[in-house]
């Protein structure tokens, strides 16, 4: 038996800590201002329209929500799959999952036409709507993860935490299935209407969540001068590589299936060949920057051992994730609805043409506010509660398991 790990609050006295808090707080204030402006004036101040109905706030919100469920994976690998190396990371994993989800929901709710009617969304349910189910799934996720964390952190409840971990793992799979199905079940649009959306979102969540987790882990250990061993970091970065590959596989299957069916050639040509910004974001943002370069960096025998390279690769996965969601969300709406197959269509309502969208500063600020909220919550939580082990040095976290596992 190895000695028990000691979890300790961060000191939180350095100038850096206060600068971080102040910076994140300032972004949140700006986001609040953007929301007040959008809600007071109406959405006409945004780039969103009746053609592109979901815009930049939704890209941010869905990224955060998807990453939230993925961030919990690290805890699940420790609890459900019994990998001891991951167990010390469980608390941070759960915290990050809650923080990212709250950040995402904040953006989603504040973009509503009527955020003041949140209580309506909580009290009127149309159970045929996957969106309504998602509201239940999000709330459930928060409750379950809080309980999971409590069982992890409270000695008396510790014996129950594998059960909570199992429930949380199953719940998070259902949650991301629900998020993917928001698009997968949209029968009308060429870019969506595919069962593959649900598992693709699940695997996207694995990659995004782990990338965010790696960055937060590295930053918090670096900034608090706590040791973070190679064993755990290399394990995480190798896993990130696997997830990137898995996302690529799903993207490949999605596009090849569409390319086989003539009816989808229009949307595929738009995304893959001549869609302007969407084509660039797909190839340069999602595939090259967000997938191939990080894969190369993570698996390269020397570069893959460099911490700045690992951090860069994780950051690139996040950039690629935003690009991917932008292409799915905005690109999917920019391509016109096929109301009259085989016909050229024109109208005063922009039928038949590619819809244009340029995100406003308000939307981007709101989205950034969601990220700031999540990071602020993590920064404060690790300051006041015992989320982070004092050391994650190789010797401290079961070196035998580190050597044998997998």
């Amino acid at each position, binding site marked *: 038996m190895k000695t028990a790990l000691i979890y300790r609050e961060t000191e939180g006295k350095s100038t850096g800590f206060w600068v971080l808090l102040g910076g994140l707080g300032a972004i949140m204030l700006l986001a609040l201002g953007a929301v007040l402006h959008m809600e007071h*004036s109406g959405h006409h101040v945004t780039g969103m329209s*009746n053609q592109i109905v979901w815009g930049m706030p939704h890209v941010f919100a869905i990224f955060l929500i998807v990453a939230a469920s993925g961030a919990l994976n690290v805890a699940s690998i420790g609890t459900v799959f019994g990998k001891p190396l991951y167990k010390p990371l469980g608390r941070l994993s759960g915290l990050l999952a809650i923080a990212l989800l709250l950040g995402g929901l904040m953006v989603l709710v504040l973009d*509503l*036409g009527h955020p003041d009617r*949140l209580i309506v969304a909580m009290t*009127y349910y*149309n159970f045929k709507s996957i969106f309504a189910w998602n509201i239940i799934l999000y709330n459930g996720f928060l409750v379950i993860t809080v309980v999971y964390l409590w069982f992890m952190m409270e000695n008396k409840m510790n014996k129950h935490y594998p059960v909570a971990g199992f429930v949380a793992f199953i719940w998070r799979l259902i949650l991301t299935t629900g998020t993917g199905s928001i698009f997968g079940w*949209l*029968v009308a649009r060429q870019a969506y209407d595919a069962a593959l959306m649900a598992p693709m979102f699940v695997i996207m969540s694995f990659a995004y969540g782990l990338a965010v987790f790696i960055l937060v882990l590295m930053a918090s250990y670096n900034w608090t001068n706590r040791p973070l061993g190679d064993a755990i970091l290399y394990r995480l970065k190798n896993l990130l590589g696997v997830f990137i590959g898995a996302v690529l596989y799903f993207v490949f299957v999605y596009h090849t299936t569409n390319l086989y069916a003539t009816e989808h050639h229009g949307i595929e040509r738009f995304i893959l060949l001549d869609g302007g910004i969407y084509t660039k974001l797909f190839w340069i943002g999602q595939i090259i920057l967000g997938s191939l370069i990080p894969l190369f960096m993570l698996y390269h025998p020397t570069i893959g051992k460099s911490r700045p390279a690992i951090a860069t690769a994780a950051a690139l996965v996040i950039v690629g994730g935003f690009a991917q969601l932008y292409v799915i969300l905005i690109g999917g709406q920019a391509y016109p609805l*096929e109301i009259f197959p085989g016909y050229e269509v024109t109208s005063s309502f922009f039928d038949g043409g590619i819809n244009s969208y340029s995100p406003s500063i308000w939307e981007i600020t709101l989205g950034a506010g969601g990220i700031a909220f999540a990071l602020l919550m993590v920064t404060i939580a690790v300051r006041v509660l015992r989320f982070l082990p004092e050391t994650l040095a190789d010797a401290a976290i079961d070196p035998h398991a580190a050597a044998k596992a997998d």
Partner: protein
Amino acid sequence: MSENSKPVDPSRREFVVKASAATSAAAIAPGVFLTAPASARPADQPVTGDKRWGILVDTNKCADNCNDCVTACETENGWGDSEPNSAPEQRTQWIRTVEIKNKSTGYAKTLPLMCQHCETAPCVDVCPTGASFRRDDGIVLVDKHICIGCRYCMMACPYKARSFIHEDLHDQKPWAPRGKGTVESCTMCVHRVDEGGTPACVEACSAENHNALIFGDLYDENSEISRELQKHDSVELRGDLGLNTGVRYRGI
């Protein structure tokens, strides 16, 4: 009509008697209905599934460059120039004329496009709060009180029939309440239909003698719309989706 005809004593007496009786009955037993109006459904009785309202669009009769149905809808429901701050892409359009041209044959048509009032409406399915709903008589509406403005219905609608209101509105029509931050679409002029009337677009089309729009009860075999649908073929837009739309098209 009755205002112009000079009242005669017997009818006046009859009116007074009936009115007194009705007033007394109403005072004694509030909430009890004494008479039923001849045609329109009383406002306080629920809509039933005995009827299904629909519109047949005969595109062969749609005149080139005619926009009368759209203008009539704007006037009737108070949209069109109500959003001065919004970009053209952001402005509401409950109904629009669409020009279509067959890519291989060059055959061209103009037709109106609005909410198709689907039997299994995707907008109703996806609405998280149930604000998007279908009445038993087939009219698809938005309850503005519980619409949270998430716009998922707009993502789901195969016809881009819905609009989101991007700014404050003024001088609304009392029978067509609208509000910033909520979604709206063609109501099939439900306020007229409930009083036994026809939608403004249909009325305008008939007024010009184009008669490209026929409104009526799809369940009534003897209604004009049913007879026309039996006589000639018609299609649903995106019929592949199997939505059983209340609006049908002929000539495309």
